[in-house]
């Protein structure tokens, strides 16, 4: 029983970070119908800024610069590349993001050289014991930060002008434009927010507690591992991103112990496939209706 509880605790902690990552995918998809495959490189970029700046300006300052930097990179990608091809198919734009991803990732991996820096200085490897259960501090902080950010996002989405504009655009792009919603601004903000979330997520990913590895190509792979979380939750559903993230964390932890470590990796995708068979738009995704 203790093992089961510990595994659930491990899974929930990781799930919170996967939810943050999945939310990044969802926000951009909702606003633009583009799947942003460059999300992993935004995560790496934020982490790289922290690594390069923390010795000169301290960890906290570097962490803030990292988060903002990742957001700005996302904004630049959107403004320079995607906004110039407004008429392009979302499918082609997704391919474009793969190009951005490869370039940014390879350059950062090259710059990192042989170092594998851990960047969760404030919370990493400082576990808290409660009864016989170990709570990893990184997971706890991630859970709190994810809850706060996701709640803020939900509120903004529901009540702010930007949220309403984004929902309108997601519903019907032409109609939204006709009523005067500035599509460019909505899209740019979505990219900025997704980038900020990537910058926050990396502070939890490149830690001993979460990934067991410092900032590296592996960090990028983990960011992309949140993709099934976004898909199984429903690519256009923010609630789905949270549910998907938690599901991925739990499935991974429980399958590792109760089946096998090797199976755990495919288990996440297996769950994704089962969900898609039953609900083709994901757990909370909008069903596409087509008139015939």
């Amino acid at each position: 029983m203790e093992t089961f509880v510990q595994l659930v605790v491990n899974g929930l902690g990781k799930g919170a970070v996967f939810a943050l990552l999945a939310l990044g995918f969802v926000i951009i998809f909702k606003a633009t119908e583009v799947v942003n495959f460059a999300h992993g490189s935004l995560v790496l970029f934020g982490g790289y800024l922290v690594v390069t700046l923390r010795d000169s300006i301290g960890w906290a300052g570097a962490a803030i610069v990292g988060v903002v930097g990742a957001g700005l990179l996302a904004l630049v990608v959107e403004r320079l590349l995607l906004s110039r091809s407004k008429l392009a198919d979302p499918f082609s734009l997704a391919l474009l993001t793969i190009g951005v991803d490869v370039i940014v990732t390879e350059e950062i991996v090259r710059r990192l050289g042989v170092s594998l820096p851990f960047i969760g200085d404030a919370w990493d490897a400082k576990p808290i014991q409660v009864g016989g259960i170990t709570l990893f501090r990184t997971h706890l902080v991630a859970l709190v930060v994810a809850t706060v950010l996701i709640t803020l996002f939900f509120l903004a989405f529901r009540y702010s002008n930007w949220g309403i504009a984004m929902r309108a655009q997601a519903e019907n792009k032409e109609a939204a434009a006709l009523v005067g919603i500035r599509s460019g601004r909505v899209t740019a903000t979505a990219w900025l927010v997704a980038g900020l979330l990537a910058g926050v997520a990396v502070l939890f990913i490149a830690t001993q507690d979460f990934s067991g590895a410092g900032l590296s190509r592996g960090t990028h792979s983990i960011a992309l591992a949140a993709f099934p979380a976004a898909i199984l939750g429903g690519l256009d559903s923010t609630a789905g991103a949270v549910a998907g993230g938690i599901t991925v964390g739990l499935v991974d932890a429980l399958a590792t112990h109760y089946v096998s470590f090797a199976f755990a990796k495919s288990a996440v995708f297996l769950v994704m496939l089962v969900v898609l068979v039953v609900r083709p738009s994901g757990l909370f995704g909008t069903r596409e209706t087509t008139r015939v």
Partner: protein
Amino acid sequence: MKRILALACASALALAACGTKGGGSEETGEGAGGVQAGVGVTDSDITLGVMTDQTGPFKNLSTGITHGNELWVKDVNASGGVCGRDVKLEIVDHGYKADTAKTLYPQIEPKVAGFVQVVGSPIMAALSSDLESDEATVTPASWSSELLGNPYVMVVGTTYDVEMIDGLSYLQEQGKIKDGDTVGHIYIDGEYGANGLRGSRYYAEQHNLNLREVKITSSDTDLTNIVTGFKGAGVKAILLTTTPTQTGSVAAANEALGLNVPILGNNPTFDPLLHDSPAAGALDKLYVVASSVPFSADIPKMKEVAGKYEKAGYSEPPNAGVPYGYAVAEVWGAVLRKACENKDLTRAGIHKALQETTSADTGDLVAKLDFSQPGAPATRQVYVAQPDASVPGGMKYVKPLFESPEAKEYQAPHQGG
């Protein structure tokens, strides 16, 4: 949604690079000093190949080995080279990827007399038949006893299976495990992990241990959930045939979860950079077994190499790869000198010289080696070391070279073959 899924699937596909082998026919001719020269040998130079990992999971150890190789090359060239020729290294990075190594091999093979370093079991497995058909002598930076089936392979040191057997024997001698205990073994898929596992299985059989085996891949990094399972199963020790990053994850989880059992690792499981990681405080339970000395070893030859390493001004912190890389190159020096005496620096000549070199003096950087038994590890002696951040190389001896009775009796896969 369908298109998105299709795109996701498409992005997961990667084109496999397919290497085709180069000519491989050896051009020979009589060169300077009446010595027959072969591939990679000119009147002025002998070029040796280094296929290393500068960007993958073993990049730190590999960089240490390469620096060890380079230090020896510098020394030997300063004293006039070998056979009147300077020794040169041709270095390529395969990033611990067999497909990359397979593509690089045909480019580097026609330039070198042999390979002083090929890092990684998966890479050796991919190149073994090429190396054999090209008659290229190779010292792999991989210590699997499965490699000993190839006559052109010279493993400097003992093998992973023997390391595990000796290490388990040490834990038992120290009273940390006893017959009938449950022990967990985390190992990387492929030859490295399989060979370590071969050793732990052998020892478990001898001592009725209940072995819980968990297979992982070299890119997995978070092993917390595995250690959580081990805790539930009541393991008394954790065995590792993994990368250093994975060692860090296990050590951190071992402490965080309050399991606190000894961890026994094969020689590539430790990297001094772990002392700078968040797992640093959890390394006191780690024991590493190897047959080449740690960088901080108190022997004259090691002190000499350490001095040279410092002088060379390398930016990377030193590790156990440095003395190993130096020792291997020194063995190569002995082989090349022998080939020179035989007036034959062709690959066949080098291989013949290797077989005639029954012991090479490495100044005790590596346990005494005996290559006279085909298929058997050249030594079964190991030392046990523990991490210590205060010494250069980050590791200190806790037990000097020894051979356990179980290791002595053990039959390696190609032994006597």
